[in-house]
């Protein structure tokens, strides 16, 4: 039982058509459904109906994030446990959005809306019988899957505590400043270094959401795609000290930060967290450059 993975991110965008073009042709996701003001996408190796929803709004940012749980009954268990922890939980009805079943919905201490769900239409990746390694006609960067997201908030310990105690997330890395301030954490439920990370910053804000890639070659290919399409770059291609991942950060047409991420280690549930302190933090963030930029730490949506 329990939380399996980050299943979906719903991001607000300023211009729906421009964003549909970007996520379809530059990121290279598959547009699976549309309704007024919204578009639904999946990455090519995902089996569920969608992993990204974009919703037109007057300001960008994170509308909600959804984590998929293993069994439908897990919703009842988590509903009780989260309520007992002291956070109000609402039910989201079946078919509230296209392809989705029922969900439970609550707000993290850092202000973001999180949903847990099990049911979602399965449309498959088309690679289950004598498959080739990749489908035909991939466009743009074409990441195989949605990987993780980084959210910001004032009370990093509070959201960390909820995710670890109630939802059994495990910690891979953390940043501790001034001896005892938990400034940022990287948490996982899958076998990747993070499914969600939390950094101290303005409440309710999104730092980025990331798509997974398979190699450094793929990261370089992504960088070429971004440049060809004149996408606004933030940082990279480079390596993180934290997670050891290979990365590029860039902005979608509404200013939401996107990342492509590859590599990192494979942590187990008994993984001993890695700790970073101020002396080495710049190398933790951008390992090669060893500098933190004002834009990277200051731009949120």
């Amino acid at each position: 039982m329990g939380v399996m993975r980050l299943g979906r991110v719903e991001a607000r965008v300023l211009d729906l058509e421009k964003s549909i073009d970007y996520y379809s042709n530059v990121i290279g996701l598959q547009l699976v459904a549309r309704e007024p003001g919204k578009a639904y996408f999946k990455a090519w190796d995902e089996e569920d109906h969608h992993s990204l929803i974009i919703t037109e709004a007057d300001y960008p940012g994170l509308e909600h994030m959804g984590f998929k749980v293993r069994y439908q009954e897990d919703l009842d268990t988590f509903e009780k446990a989260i309520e007992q922890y002291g956070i109000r939980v609402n039910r989201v009805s079946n078919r509230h959005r296209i392809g989705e079943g029922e969900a439970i919905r609550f707000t993290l201490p850092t202000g973001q809306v999180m949903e847990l769900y099990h049911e979602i239409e399965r449309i498959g990746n088309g690679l289950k019988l004598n498959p080739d390694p990749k489908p035909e006609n991939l466009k743009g960067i074409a990441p195989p899957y949605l990987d993780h997201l980084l959210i910001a908030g004032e009370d990093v310990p509070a959201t960390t505590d909820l995710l670890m105690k109630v939802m059994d997330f495990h910690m891979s890395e953390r940043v501790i400043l001034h001896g005892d301030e938990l400034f940022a954490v990287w948490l996982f439920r899958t076998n990747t270094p993070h499914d969600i990370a939390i950094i101290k910053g303005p409440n309710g804000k999104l730092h980025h959401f990331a798509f997974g890639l398979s190699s450094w070659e793929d990261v370089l290919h992504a960088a070429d795609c971004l440049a060809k399409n004149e996408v606004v770059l933030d940082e990279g291609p480079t390596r993180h000290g934290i997670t050891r991942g290979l990365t590029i950060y860039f902005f979608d047409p509404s200013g939401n930060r996107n990342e492509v991420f590859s590599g990192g280690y494979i942590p187990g549930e008994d993984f001993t967290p890695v700790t970073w302190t101020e002396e080495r933090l710049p190398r933790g963030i951008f390992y090669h450059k060893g500098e933190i930029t004002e834009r990277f730490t200051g731009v949120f949506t």
Partner: protein
Amino acid sequence: MANEYRIFVANKSREYLCRHGQNILSSSIEQGVRVIKRGCLGGGCGFCKIRVEAGQYELGKVSIKALPAEERKEGFVLACKTVPLSDLVIRISGD
């Protein structure tokens, strides 16, 4: 219609040119004039907020959280979505 407009940065005593139809942030970056902070270039983050003190301009779609209506009335803009319609005098926020 002018091909280029002059953008005078009041509190930095600097001036640069902005091509017709181009936003005042991208044109400054192209010319290596690093006076305005460059964020997302999408009107979403508010990193490039400045104030226009004189001149006409057109402001594209920007986040209402990054640039609330009352600030817009006072002449604040996001430079990445601001296209000049005349020469402009701008002031860098926070200085």
